[in-house]
């Protein structure tokens, strides 16, 4: 999975415009990284790559890069 796609998923989950976030964006600093966005990301990841993220996985993500590393 290339990182561009994963960033798109994150933007999609948080309802952000394309190009709003980059690898070093700190998720916790984004107001949009709320419980709803986390569920959205879970759904997207499940649908696209048939992987189920857990609550612990989600809490361990600090930056966008962490999500990329985890899913790659």
């Amino acid at each position, binding site marked *: 999975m290339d990182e561009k796609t994963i960033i798109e998923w994150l933007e999609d989950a948080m*309802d952000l415009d394309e190009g709003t976030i980059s690898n070093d964006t700190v998720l916790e600093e984004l*107001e949009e990284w*709320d*419980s*709803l966005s*986390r*569920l*959205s990301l*879970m*759904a997207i990841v*499940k*649908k696209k790559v048939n992987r*189920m*993220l*857990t*609550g612990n996985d*989600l809490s361990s993500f600090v930056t966008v890069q962490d999500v990329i590393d985890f899913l790659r």
Partner: protein
Amino acid sequence: MHGRYDNIKIQGITAAVPSTVEDNMEYADLMDPRRVKKQIKLTGVKRRHVVKKEQRASDLAYAAAVNLIENKRVDIHKVKICILITQAPNYQLPSTAFFLHKRLGLDKDCLVYDMNLGCSSFNVGVQTVSALLQACDVHTQALLLMSDSSGRAIDPEKNYTEDMITHNMLFGSAATAILLEKVEHNDLYFMNMSDGNGFQAIIKYVGNPASMDGPEVFRFAINDVTEGIQQFKNLYNIQEDMIDYYSFHQAQGLILDNIVDLCNIPPEKELRSIEEYGNTSGSSVLLNLCVNRDLLQPKDTCRFFISGFGVGLSWGYIYTTIDTCDIFPVMETGDHYDEDKI
């Protein structure tokens, strides 16, 4: 556990909701409107019927039960079982079912108690009542009532946290009532599953608001519930062309979309009512039938696949035939009974 009853029929279904409707956009005054819109989009809940302070789950259960008794012209002397499933009882003791037994004027020759379950109420309740009816004579009737009041109107006196608002915007209040009868022949297949490891996923400690572990509930719905659908179909060789409609617990839109997608369920067969009623706990699977009755009416009978899942964790499946004339329109009520209040 799973099994088949060959002598149980659902002979009537009614639903009652509070007459007060809350539009979720009203929460834009209390929380970032962007987040409010996002939640509406994700959960699919636009409006909910909510109880006001004085209206209790037992008021809704009573309204649904009376509606059922009237519509089906039930001879109340023939009702030998009356079970209420609720997580919002009137009292710590006795079971609220006794209060309803009195109000409905049922006979002493009747088994009465409450069960404590949420979104899987229908599945566990039908299996329980069906088992109880086995020892009775043919044509013995039972009332199974399900009622919760999780959907509450905004209280202007209260300070709401974001979590509380998120919770509020999801839940509606409703009661449903079913008339179950032991008959000569009718098939009802069931499977019920439980996982106590998830007892904290949805939990309400006494005196505190309910809390929900969103990711864990989502994982459960997507993994366990969808797995069970296939397992249940395989067990009883239930083919797609043997199902007219599916009614899933109206947990939230995102979960429903994923279940339908993962199980390759034809979207036109999946009934939905979450937009106008929200998540109504144990009543949602049957409220779903009542809301969509016009769609069902062209057929005299429908073969339903019904699945409730949630707090426990508890989840189940029922496959059976119901006559569409036995599914009654949703009624609204603002009534409340106060004489027992202290």
